[in-house]
């Protein structure tokens, strides 16, 4: 048993997952404290209500009340996770290559604009909807690629900090999108419904992502296959980053620009490429959301930036920048969001507790390196103590540094950690379902 435990913590992937779980637990504890404090200071709210509150948040979509509502919320949760997964991947990829892509909101907006214009402009009576859908997606991605490449270009050529350029491109995008739709207004703006400031749903042109009955299965939600597309992209990204020469280069440039240059890599090209791909990923998320067919895109964006663009940062942090982990982190964040809505609907609290919990989790995620280090320390202490006590052979004079290559297996390569990520996060999701 002790042996197992030791080996368990010794794996870096396991430590990453445990660190993430500790972050989540920390957030939940703080959320619970807030609920209790609210209950104490408000005589209309009983103490039991606080327990009900935290259980509701924890239950996510399952706190909806009825089975049908739960399925409905679950479907929408999965659908809404799609853009978050994509922006999360965008941020994670940039982090892996040593860049901070805070420009995902701008790239997201450009992607939304590109895909909507194409989806609504090409008459489906002439071109089959499938083709329009694909063209719209590609246009969105392309615009995102260009938008992401801008900060990459300035970083590579003039060494301008990408964060500054990203923030500028965010607001430029917000204004460009508003301007374009204002100018072209009549073609795209939704006048049919009584809502204002929204673009027409792409379904009005017959363009919508296939749902193959998923929407009906999940209580008439918006769920379509985009969640699977995002998952496939995450897996591809994982493979590219970890198994290919291209990923090897990108990560090398992220870790040490000078050594990469010395080794003959084109570090400037790699910076631009990495930002361009990050931009494409964020834009793809927006396009998948818009092309669902039934979504209202608010075109007057010049005062606000899309939250999912920024939320990619916590998703990436919570997943330790592992693409597979991003899937679970994103779903989990949306899961808490659904819990927050139910909190407002079914208890005396308002829904803002769940963003609070998410915020605390993100604070903890910022310190996940520290948590991981502490775990590593604990593992190391146990291991060395055990080794010194139980295993006299480890002190064998012949056991010099060179003669023990076998111990190399103690440190798993990345792919293992991803598998662990998968399993542990899975368990976590299931835990939520039970409650």
């Amino acid at each position, binding site marked *: 048993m002790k042996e197992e435990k030791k080996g368990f913590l010794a794996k870096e992937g396991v430590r990453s997952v445990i660190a993430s779980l500790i972050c989540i637990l920390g957030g939940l504890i703080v959320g619970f404290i807030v609920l209790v404090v609210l209950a104490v200071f408000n005589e209309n709210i009983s103490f039991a209500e606080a327990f009900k509150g935290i259980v509701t948040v924890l239950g996510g979509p399952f706190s909806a009340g009825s089975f049908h509502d739960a399925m409905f919320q679950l479907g929408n949760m999965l659908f809404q996770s799609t853009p978050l997964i994509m922006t999360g991947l965008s941020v994670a990829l940039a982090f892996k290559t040593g860049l901070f892509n805070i420009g995902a909101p701008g790239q997201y907006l450009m992607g939304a604009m590109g895909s909507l214009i194409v989806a609504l402009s090409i008459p489906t009576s002439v071109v089959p909807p499938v083709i329009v859908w694909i063209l719209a997606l590609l246009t969105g991605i392309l615009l995102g690629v260009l938008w992401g490449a801008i900060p990459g270009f300035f970083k590579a050529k003039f060494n301008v900090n990408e964060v500054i350029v990203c923030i500028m491109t965010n607001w430029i995008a917000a204004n460009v999108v508003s301007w374009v739709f204002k100018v072209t207004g009549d073609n795209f703006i939704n006048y049919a419904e009584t809502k204002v400031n929204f673009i027409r749903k792409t379904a009005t042109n017959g363009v919508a992502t296939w749902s193959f009955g998923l929407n009906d299965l999940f209580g008439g939600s918006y769920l379509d296959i985009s969640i699977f597309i995002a998952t496939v992209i995450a897996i591809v990204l994982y493979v590219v980053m970890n*198994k*290919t*020469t*291209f990923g*090897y*280069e990108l*990560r*090398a440039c992220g*870790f*040490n620009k*000078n*050594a*990469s*240059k*010395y*080794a*003959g*890599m*084109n570090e400037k090209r790699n910076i631009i490429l990495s930002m361009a791909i990050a931009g494409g990923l964020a834009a793809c998320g927006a396009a998948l959301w818009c092309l669902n067919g039934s979504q209202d895109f608010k075109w007057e964006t010049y005062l606000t930036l899309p939250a999912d663009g920024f939320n990619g940062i916590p998703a990436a942090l919570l997943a330790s920048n592992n693409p597979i982990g991003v899937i679970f982190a994103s779903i989990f964040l949306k899961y808490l969001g659904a819990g927050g809505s139910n909190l407002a609907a079914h208890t005396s609290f308002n829904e803002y507790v769940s963003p609070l919990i998410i915020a605390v989790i993100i604070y903890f995620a910022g310190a996940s390196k520290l948590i991981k280090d502490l775990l590593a320390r604990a593992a*190391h*202490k146990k*291991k*060395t*103590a055990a*080794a*010194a006590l139980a295993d006299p052979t*480890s*002190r064998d*004079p012949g*056991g*010099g*540094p*060179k003669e*023990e*290559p076998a*111990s*190399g*297996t*103690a*440190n798993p*390569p990345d792919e293992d950690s991803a598998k662990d990520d998968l399993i542990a996060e899975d368990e976590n999701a299931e835990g939520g379902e039970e409650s």
Partner: protein
Amino acid sequence: MDKGRINESAPYAVEMRHITKVFPGIVANDDITLQLRRGEIHALLGENGAGKSTLMSVLFGLYQPEGGEIYKNGEKVTINDPNDANALGIGMVHQHFKLVDVFTVLDNIILGTEPSTLGFLRKKEARKKVMRLSKEYGLNVDPDALVEDITVGMQQRTEILKMLYRDNEILIFDEPTAVLTPQEITELMGIIRGLAAEGKSILFISHKLNEIMEIADRCTVLRKGKYVGTVNIAETSKEELSSMMVGRGVKFEVDKDDAKPGETVLSIEHLSVKSRIHKKLAVKDVSLTVRSGEIVCIAGIDGNGQSEFVGALSGLEKCESGSRIVLNGEDVTKKNIRYKNTHGVSHIPEDRHKHGLILDYTLEQNMVLQRYFEPRFQHGGFIKFDEVRKYAEGLIDKYDVRSGQGPLTPARGMSGGNQQKAIIARELDRDHDLLIAVQPTRGLDVGAIEFIHEQIVASRDAGRAVLLVSLELEEVMNLSDRILVMYEGEIVGEFDPKKTTVQELGLYMAGAKRQHGGEGGDAE
């Protein structure tokens, strides 16, 4: 040396008994005993990775040993963290200084023990104490200068003042001379002697035998994590110390036959390079050739354009127009780094952390840093992990690169000497006609130096052209077939190592003499 200062009858200032420290895959310290007398300068000698730093980290509270005890003045103590060490009067100057670059010298000295009233600093008091200590021990610093603006020597004096400010009695110096110029080393030796004369006990970690012979009273030798012995310096010799350290006799001279230079491999014409720092020419109109089968060495004091020269040659720096670099008869002036890498240039860079390695990559990933794209290591863009592993294991074996977890060791976790060996393995194993080696033995112990020198000579004997850039005159004299002295970006003299002396080279390196033309120089 004034031996009277050492109190041999009093209990040891610090005694480490039977210390054992185990890391995954390595017993870093195996039953090591170290006894430091009050007022003594005690050297700790060992190869890279012998366990010196680990032992000091145990003493400093950074690691907890699995076995053994520490006594201070005869009393058993436990040291859980550096604060405990500090409270016990143990201070350490790390090899890489732990200073805040944007703080002043004074701020750095008091950092962590700032005297304050209600949260407000009482800097005047601190300044008085620092100035007093500075005068008392001859540690000349400017308390108001920013650390980033001062010389390495002054940074080190700041570190020493930091220890004295905390009233430390036991001062640990981890390879203090590695980063210093010869003048600064002389000065440091004086300071250390002064400290010992004041009753401080000093642990001096080094693998430079000359320094130990010069300054230490006693020396404890470690080898591969084990205690070899403690000797009185007055009763030993450099040869004895080195064989204790390496476990065999070490040659200080490099065995090599006369060079048999063949065809010209590298020819540089009118190379000029601008400095990145001050934008003026750091290399001025340098022309030289290197033929196959010879080792040409560029000697000079650090900062005379060697870095920029090598940078331009490898492609890391741009050269000015009119410069021409010809490799094997082909003009490669405008070619990129990858082209040069794949067309016969191997390069052991000056700064192994900045350029040589990606510290967050594993050893095997670093071994293929310039080759990962070759068909041997990838197929359709997918890395062949098995091939990489096999290749790395081969190199590790051939060049005796030691690490805790073999090819999977993160480069960051390896000792400096083994990091350097890894780079040398990688560069020498690549198909090359020209080897550019910059400071290839910086910070390494005699055993590793001997090995690397042998490898460089072997490369020459295999018909490669070798361009060596070194600041160490001993290395220059030992290894080269032809010496070029660089001063302020120009080649000021060419010498045959057999017909010149260190003294003569020194004059050229300092700019006091020059051979070719030049104003004010004495023609030879």
